[in-house]
């Protein structure tokens, strides 16, 4: 069994978001990059399958040299090898195309992406990759079990969950639930040492036309101060919610 986990590096969740160059570019100053949390749940699941099914785990990221540190971290967590597709990610479709052209060369049984990245929030790379490779896709995936040739999956839906059954190859969009928070692997010294020996290959990107572009960014307007209500006077809160906020 062979698994591809697609990794995106994103600003750490506590980052203050600012823009530069006339709001045309994201301000990298002081930003720590981490593995996109949804991708990390997927990566952890792949390491489980590596142990249970002797699966080979390959991680891939579309990005410049700044992505190497994140890929090394994935190797330290337990991935067998890493591939960086050497280009600036332009939009979701562009990234999906780059990943598809790599994935098409190796017969992956399972391809894992995060359900969405926490920076662009496109929620599209997994679905588009699946379409390009002409294989099925399950997003918001909260369970995956291999029973012989059958793959049993669960997808979180509004107000519940859906159980599905399929076969490899397939693409999933990972999120919390696929593994739990406590299952996430913090690389140890041995892992970090081993990661140095593992292959990190740089692959040239395909020349592609870009289908969309970001023009600029904007930050939401500053919020007004909170209106405090005395805990002894909750009628006032109800009145405000009813008559001022129109929310009851």
């Amino acid at each position, binding site marked *: 069994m062979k698994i591809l986990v697609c990794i995106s590096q994103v600003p750490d*969740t506590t980052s203050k*978001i600012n823009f530069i160059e006339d709001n045309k570019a994201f301000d990298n100053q002081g930003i720590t990059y981490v593995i996109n*949390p949804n991708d990390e749940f997927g990566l952890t699941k792949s390491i489980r399958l590596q142990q249970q099914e002797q699966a080979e785990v390959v991680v891939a990221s579309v990005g410049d040299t700044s992505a190497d540190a994140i890929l090394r971290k994935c190797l330290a967590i337990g991935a067998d090898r890493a591939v960086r597709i050497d280009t600036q990610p332009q939009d*979701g*479709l562009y990234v999906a195309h780059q990943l598809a052209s790599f994935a098409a060369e190796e017969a992956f049984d399972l391809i894992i992406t995060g359900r969405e990245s*926490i*920076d*662009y*929030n*496109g*929620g*599209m790379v997994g*679905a*588009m990759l*699946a*379409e390009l490779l002409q294989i*099925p*896709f399950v*997003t918001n995936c909260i369970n995956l079990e291999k029973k012989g040739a059958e793959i*049993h999956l669960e*997808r979180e*839906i*509004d*107000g*519940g*969950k859906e*159980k599905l*059954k*399929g076969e490899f190859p*397939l693409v999933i969009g990972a999120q*919390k*639930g696929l593994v*739990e*928070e406590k299952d996430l692997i913090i690389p140890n010294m041995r892992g970090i040492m081993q990661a140095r020996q593992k292959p990190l290959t740089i692959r040239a990107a395909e020349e592609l*036309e870009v*289908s*969309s*572009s*970001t*023009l*600029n*960014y*904007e*930050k*939401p307007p500053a*919020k007004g101060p*909170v*209106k*405090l*209500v*005395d*805990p002894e006077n*909750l*009628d006032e*809160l*109800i009145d405000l*919610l009813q008559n001022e*906020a129109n*929310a*009851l």
Partner: protein
Amino acid sequence: MSVLVYIESQDQQIKKSSLEVAAYGRAVADAMNTSLIAVTFGLAYSELLSHYGVDKVCNVQTEGASYFNLSRHSATLARVASEEKAAVLIVSGSANGRYLGPAVAMKFEATYFSNVIGLPLSFAPLKVKRSCFTNKAFNYSTSHKEKVVLSLAANTYGIFEKKVNMDQRTVQYASSTSTLEVVSEEKSTQQVSIADAEIVVSGGRGLKGPENWHLIEDLAAVLGAATACSKPVSDMGWRPHSEHVGQTGKPVASNLYIAIGVSGAIQHLAGINSSKIKVVINNDPEAPFFKAADYGVVGDAFEVVPVLIEKLKTLKGN
């Protein structure tokens, strides 16, 4: 040319998020001087859509079409979009809408934009505003393709009525060779889902333990609200994961969000920020949530919430 909207229904009822998509589609069609076409799946009566500005509805009546199937739904929508010469195809920000959007965009060879806020700023080329960095910023993007698929950010546009004469036609459900099949669907016991709720009542670690969750549940019950929780609460198993909201959990875009014993960590706020009105009840006046909230009560949840429930019961009783 036309504008096409995907209409999602559940138990033969059109979802509210889809009525919002219809109203939004009407405004897009007006701006483009063209007609609005809706596609329904396994819905017996679609007349309601004529009240939301839909000029023509294409109903998929094939057996089984009311069950969501990604490959069949996306292939059907892409085919109808080509037949109707759609330039813009719109889905809601529901779980199924966001699942469908990028798949349809690929089949329809269109650019896909998710989390779209407000009407497009221009049409040739198409320019949209979308939320990004989990609601911490907005991004203005433009498409280099003529056709686009938009997923509308939930509860951002509003539902507006407009009565029109509506044509109906039946369309075929696309077949699929996908190996993937849906086995079953499990609905949670909640009356209303976090995605569809007008009001969400959320509890954090300040509630001390799962045995105190009757406070959250009772308050939600009087308000007809969905219940939610912070990440540590679900990590500790006090509440199911499906209730975890925030950056790594479910997004919330309700009209009213009431947070009780939640500190308001940046990751929590990121996921609930698109709720319109935020209320916090917390005994620590320094809790960061007070900076994000519209209304706040500095007080002990165990004293404040029972009184609030009683007062609301009296109010709703009348």
